[in-house]
């Protein structure tokens, strides 16, 4: 059931309005119908009352005072069925009496000061009433009525009214032919209700669409902006005024965010420049240190500072790279990074690779690979690098034979300034930015970086495996 409910604003509002409107309109239609039906019924009863009054008081009773005595009553004889006088009530034993109509008729006759002992009103099909149907069939034969029309009329609704006047044994029975109130009243009412319903729903749908369309565009824009972080493709202001203000406010916020990011980039550039120049000066000055060992140590320290500075600056810039994507042959890139380490005499092994061209940022990806291989060498003493394809993704795997990472802390290893070695002893090197940067670079390429321990057959940890994936094409 829950799955069938609409999730969108448009769907939910349409459903709510449709249900509420249906309920309210049904209620109102029902009230209108019962009021109309009531007055229609009263009209029919008045016809019956008229006949009874006329019969009991005689036609003279209706003659106006200005008319001469015995003058014709005027107008044609009432159509329908003549009044019948019977010795018993007109209803059969299992017929349902219409108590509501009976009390109403009693009131009408009372107003005519006709003393009535008992009233019986029942509803029948014309065809079910013996006397009425006999009379109708005679009439129909006389006029050679077609069969279908006869059947239709035989199905008509007949009100049979029996009245026993006060002090009399006999019943006066009158019959009034009345088309079912339903046909007359209900169908136009339903038609009208549905018409209003359709017009209202169309109006609501129109307004909702005007609201939800810019909303959907705004949602798409927010998603795009989260990735691209630039002002290209800002959405134009449209929709109702509330929506327009939301879009305006959103665009203003985007501009502000981009300004902040620009400011950040400028600031980082300035920090980089302002720190690297004195570091360069320092690097020149240490050349005058006589002691070779001491000078080499100083140079290493400066290199460490520079590397950390570069990592911090890169981490801050990685989400907003200024260099464009470039179609690059990935295996050559992986191989060339591995060869850099080979040249330094590091134990890096190259496993299987295969050629594939991808859109990527080579400078950044090199950096991620260097960080991962560097970690493997630092903590695992060896590194095995391989490149393959797996389900639409390029997969670079870097394995080491080190102690791995305790399962609970794998995720936190990816956070900046977290290192495998809790002592933060600088002999193991780095500021703990390598993995954070590698993961951010994987994200930048729409891919991912996952770390997992490698287990031997006995379940012992054999080393760590870093898996960097990038979507192909």
């Amino acid at each position, binding site marked *: 059931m829950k799955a069938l409910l609409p999730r969108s604003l448009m769907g939910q509002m349409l459903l709510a309005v449709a249900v509420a409107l249906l309920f309210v309109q049904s209620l109102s239609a029902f009230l209108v119908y019962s009021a109309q039906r009531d007055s229609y019924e009263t009209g029919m009863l008045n016809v019956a009352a008229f006949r009874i009054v006329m019969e009991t008081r005689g036609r003279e009773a209706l003659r106006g005072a200005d008319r001469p005595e015995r003058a014709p009553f005027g107008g044609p004889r009432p159509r329908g069925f003549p009044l019948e006088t019977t010795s018993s009530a007109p209803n059969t034993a299992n017929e349902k009496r219409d108590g509501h109509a009976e009390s109403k008729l009693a009131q009408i006759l009372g107003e005519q000061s006709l003393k009535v002992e008992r009233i019986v009103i029942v509803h029948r099909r014309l065809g079910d009433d013996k006397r009425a149907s006999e009379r109708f069939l005679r009439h129909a034969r006389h006029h050679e009525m077609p069969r279908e029309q006869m059947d239709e009329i035989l199905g008509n609704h007949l009100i049979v009214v029996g009245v026993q006047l006060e002090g009399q044994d006999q019943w006066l029975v009158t019959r009034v032919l009345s088309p079912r109130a339903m046909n007359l009243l209900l169908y136009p009412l339903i038609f009208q209700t549905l018409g209003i319903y359709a017009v209202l729903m169309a109006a609501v749908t129109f307004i909702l669409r005007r609201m939800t369309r810019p909303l959907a565009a705004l949602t798409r824009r927010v998603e795009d902006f989260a990735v691209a972080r630039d002002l290209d493709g800002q959405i134009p202001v449209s929709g109702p005024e509330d929506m327009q203000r939301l879009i305006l406010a959103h665009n203003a916020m985007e501009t502000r965010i981009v300004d902040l990011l620009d400011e950040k980039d400028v600031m980082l550039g300035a920090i980089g420049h302002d720190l690297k120049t004195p570091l360069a000066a320092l690097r*020149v000055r240490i050349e005058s240190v006589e002691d070779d060992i001491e000078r080499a140590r100083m140079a290493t320290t400066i290199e460490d500072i520079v590397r950390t500075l570069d990592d911090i600056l890169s981490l801050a810039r990685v989400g907003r790279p200024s260099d464009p994507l470039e179609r690059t042959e990935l295996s050559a890139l992986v191989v060339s990074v591995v060869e850099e380490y080979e040249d330094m005499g590091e134990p890096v092994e190259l496993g299987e690779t295969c050629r594939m061209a991808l859109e990527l940022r080579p400078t950044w990806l090199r950096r991620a690979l260097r960080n991962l291989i560097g970690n493997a060498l630092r903590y695992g003493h060896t590194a095995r690098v391989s490149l393959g394809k797996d389900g639409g993704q390029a997969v670079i795997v870097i394995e080491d034979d080190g102690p791995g990472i305790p399962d609970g802390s794998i995720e936190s290893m990816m956070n900046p300034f977290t290192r495998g070695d809790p002592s933060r002893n600088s002999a193991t090197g780095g500021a703990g930015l390598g993995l954070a940067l590698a993961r951010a670079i994987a994200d930048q390429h729409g891919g991912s970086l996952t770390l997992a321990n490698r287990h031997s057959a006995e379940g012992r940890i054999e080393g760590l495996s870093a898996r960097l994936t990038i979507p192909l094409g």
Partner: protein
Amino acid sequence: MNDTAPVRLLLVDDEAALREPLGEYLSRQGFTVIQASSAAEARTFLRDHKADLVLLDIMMPGEDGLSFCRHLVEAQDLPVIFLTARGEATDRIVGLEIGADDYVVKPFEPRELVARIRSVLRRAARGVPAAPENEAFLFEGWTLDPLKRRLTDADGAVVAISSVEFRLLMAFLEHPRQVLDRDRLLDMVQGREAHLFDRAVDNQVSRLRRKIEVDSRNPQLIQTVWGGGYMLAADVKRVALEDE
């Protein structure tokens, strides 16, 4: 290079903190160093004096290093080495495109700077064009843009090569279908990373094959010539590059 007269270096950097110790260091290395704190000051000096090479900071107040470099290369035909604090690839390429001969990223190792100064001066003395010409080499579907050191395959994907591999490939492309023996290759490829190249030519050739051969165990492009050396078995076309 003339060994009798000292080489005159014009050092242009707005940061006195770097300029002064660097000037002293270079003087100790046997160069005559003239210091300038801005492009304007350097221009004034060059009006009346001569320099053999300019060391130029990119980010300076007033006229920046890139614009001054353009002037130096076009008007004075002076070799230029950039000193840059920025390390991004795009800056490097821009620097080389406007005619700088080399660059070092701050903070650089002073000895490396000296090595590069000597290498640029050597090239200038030999009359080798300071910057590679703006043309590309086409061979067997591959394209090498020497300026950007960019090798692309038939599908236009960039194939990463190291600077040694780049020079090795350039040597082959400049002498297609010629047998180049190991000594000759070593001579042509000898560069500032010479210490990396000690690992023998064969090793570098096999690395280059790994990147450009369809099957590096059965090489077709760079063939081994028995007893001789290596040969590029492809025709090479030079095509002028449009400025991007």
